[in-house]
């Protein structure tokens, strides 16, 4: 069984990694090695760049030299054009890693006089391949030949031979072709190149253009079939392999503080889970951004990297505004821990936003991503699409163990609990901010709508923005309902007054008891005193009595002496 699997694996199509960001993930490893691939698309959709990046990455990342045979642009033009992508083609040519060959046909110079073939092209290509030992070949718009050579029969036969020859040669080739009206390419090249067909597209919807790539077919291999948005920028291509994400995220028990201690307490005392997705939703001006800024500051203080996408405010404005509630973000930007990405949602299409997000996240490698706010995307776009996009973003961030905090502006007419973007099911922790109008005041309250995997507080707290940041106060809940703001303060004062009277009562009682005790003690002392006087009286009497008794005895003995009853004894004792 295992052996069979292994042989099957070995029999699997070998792939040549393109090195183009994201493309290898879609195709499960790159282009089919040793086979030609057709890259087709309308003018200006990036075919040439795709081919060129394939070659340059081949050289720089996989040490596979390549030949670029251009039927349209001259070598100098090519070098200049791709320099804007950071490719030093001239240097690679000098190192004999890349061979550029510009094939140019002028129809007016050419006269057909009978049988011919394209052996010259073969020899030329062969020479170029052999001169640098190329493994990769790009034929940029070979269809130009159809304009240069009148005899299509010969041309088609020769092209068929060319692609077969490329296969035999064992080079991985990219053939670009202009998109046709009904066919993939104008000249039906897909007829000849049947192993792998990639289609590039550049579409404009709602005045925003998005580049998309689709693998139309890939013989002998699984591949992503969707249309994937891609970007061309100073680092070349980057394609978003959006649906390659599953639900196999790694989860941790790590917690990250929300930056507001009271909020942490509400979330089982520790804050959000790392890698979870937090949604802060609420009506306008309830402090969503402030909460996000708190989270940002707390993360930066821990030394974590934060990527902040602001779609409505400029970074400077945001920094200024947050300073007013005591959150200093500027120096974190300077330290490089915090990066702002400010773009208007209408600046690109949704797909492009996704691609830009991906790119920025991959480049900055943040621990925390904040998107403020997410629902501005809905402007002009379909809700479904926004949801898919956000789902992709959430999946992508979760896959990278990035804690995400989104803010969402709920419009007044919608129910608060139905987040406009409809992503509530994607959210792990959902904080709801709302305002309460009571006795001529508008106060903010906050509660945790849900928080997966933790014993969160069920309390509604009053949310106060102070110059020390966000503070959460317990609201007064009593017979009068939930009280906030000055009503709460009044209630508190009232309660305080009540408490005070109670305290005073106790004091009074204490004093009374003290008094009683004193009275009692005085009585006791009185009794003591009278008792003492009586006692001394009694003692005096006793002493008197004793005196009396002594006197009596004395009298008695004197009487005896006088009667001479006990003379001797008395005389003897007297002498002593």
């Amino acid at each position, binding site marked *: 069984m295992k052996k069979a699997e292994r042989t099957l694996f070995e029999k699997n199509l070998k792939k040549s990694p393109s090195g183009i960001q994201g493309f290898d993930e879609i195709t499960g490893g790159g282009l089919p090695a040793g086979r030609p691939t057709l890259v087709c698309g309308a003018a200006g959709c990036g075919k040439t760049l795709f081919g060129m990046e394939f070659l340059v990455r081949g050289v720089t990342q996989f040490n596979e030299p390549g030949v670029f045979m251009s039927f349209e642009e001259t070598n100098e033009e090519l070098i200049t054009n791709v320099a804007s992508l950071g490719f030093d083609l001239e240097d690679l040519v000098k190192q004999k890693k890349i061979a550029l060959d510009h094939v140019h*046909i002028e129809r007016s110079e050419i*006269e057909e*006089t009978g049988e011919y*073939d*394209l052996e*010259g092209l073969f*020899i*030329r290509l062969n020479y170029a391949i052999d001169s640098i030992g190329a493994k990769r070949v790009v034929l940029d718009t070979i269809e130009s030949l159809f304009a*240069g050579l009148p005899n299509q029969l010969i041309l088609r036969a020769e092209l068929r031979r060319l692609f077969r020859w490329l296969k035999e040669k064992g080079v991985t080739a990219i053939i670009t072709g202009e998109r046709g009206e009904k066919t993939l390419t104008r000249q039906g090249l897909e007829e000849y190149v049947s192993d792998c067909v990639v289609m590039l597209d550049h579409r404009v919807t709602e005045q925003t253009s998005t580049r998309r790539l689709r693998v139309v077919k890939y013989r002998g291999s699984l591949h992503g079939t969707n249309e994937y948005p891609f970007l061309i920028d100073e680092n070349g291509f980057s394609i978003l392999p959006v649906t390659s994400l599953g639900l196999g995220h790694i989860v941790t028990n790590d917690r990250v503080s929300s930056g507001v201690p009271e909020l942490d307490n509400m979330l089982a005392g520790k804050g959000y889970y790392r890698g979870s997705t937090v949604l802060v939703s609420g009506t306008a001006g309830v402090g969503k951004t402030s909460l996000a800024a708190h989270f940002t500051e707390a993360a930066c203080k821990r030394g974590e990297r934060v990527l902040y996408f602001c779609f409505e405010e400029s970074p400077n404005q945001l920094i200024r505004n947050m300073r007013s509630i005591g959150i200093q973000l500027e120096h974190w930007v300077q330290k490089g821990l915090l990066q702002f990405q400010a773009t208007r949602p209408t600046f690109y299409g949704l797909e492009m936003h996704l691609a830009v997000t991906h790119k920025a996240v991959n480049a900055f490698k943040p621990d925390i991503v904040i998107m403020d706010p997410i629902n501005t995307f809905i402007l002009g776009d379909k809700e479904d699409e926004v949801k898919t996009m956000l789902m992709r973003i959430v999946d992508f961030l979760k896959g990278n163990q990035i804690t995400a905090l989104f803010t969402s502006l709920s419009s007044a007419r919608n129910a608060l609990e139905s987040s406009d973007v409809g992503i509530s099911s994607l959210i792990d922790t959902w904080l709801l901010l709302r305002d309460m109008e009571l006795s001529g005041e508008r106060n903010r309250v906050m509660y945790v709508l849900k928080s997966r995997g933790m014993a969160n507080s069920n309390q509604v707290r009053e949310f106060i923005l102070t110059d020390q940041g966000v503070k959460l106060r317990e609201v007064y809940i009593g017979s009068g309902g939930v009280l906030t703001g000055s009503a709460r303060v009044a209630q508190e004062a009232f309660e305080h007054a009540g408490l005070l009277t109670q305290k005073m009562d106790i004091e009074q009682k204490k004093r009374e008891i003290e008094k009683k005790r004193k009275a009692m003690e005085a009585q006791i002392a009185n009794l003591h005193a009278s008792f003492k006087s009586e006692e001394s009286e009694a003692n005096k009497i006793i002493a008197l009595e004793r005196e009396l008794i002594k006197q009596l005895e004395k009298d008695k003995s004197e009487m005896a002496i006088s009667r001479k009853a006990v003379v001797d004894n008395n005389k003897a004792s007297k002498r002593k």
Partner: protein
Amino acid sequence: MKPMIEKSDSRTIKRKPPKTADDKWILRLYVAGQSPKALTAFANLKKICEEQLKGKYSIEVIDLLINPKLGNDDQILALPTLVRKLPVPVRKIIGDLSDTERVLVGLNLLPVR
């Protein structure tokens, strides 16, 4: 560039040095080995030149199989290709030159009607 004259032993390539610079015709025939097409083309070219340009032409035969690099300058794709280097402008005639009239048009040897 070194002309590949008389490179192939099996063929005799005549080279007639031009008498004056003005009427010098330099023709280059690119081939790949000795394919039937190449042989036909050479035979046809010889015939036409002998008829039209006797004594004032030179033919270089360049075999790209032997020296592939030489094809780049003249942008050779199709084979066989005849290139008229002189007199200017450069003209290219592809094919086995069996259509004599078109060759003459291509070489600009037919008077414009």
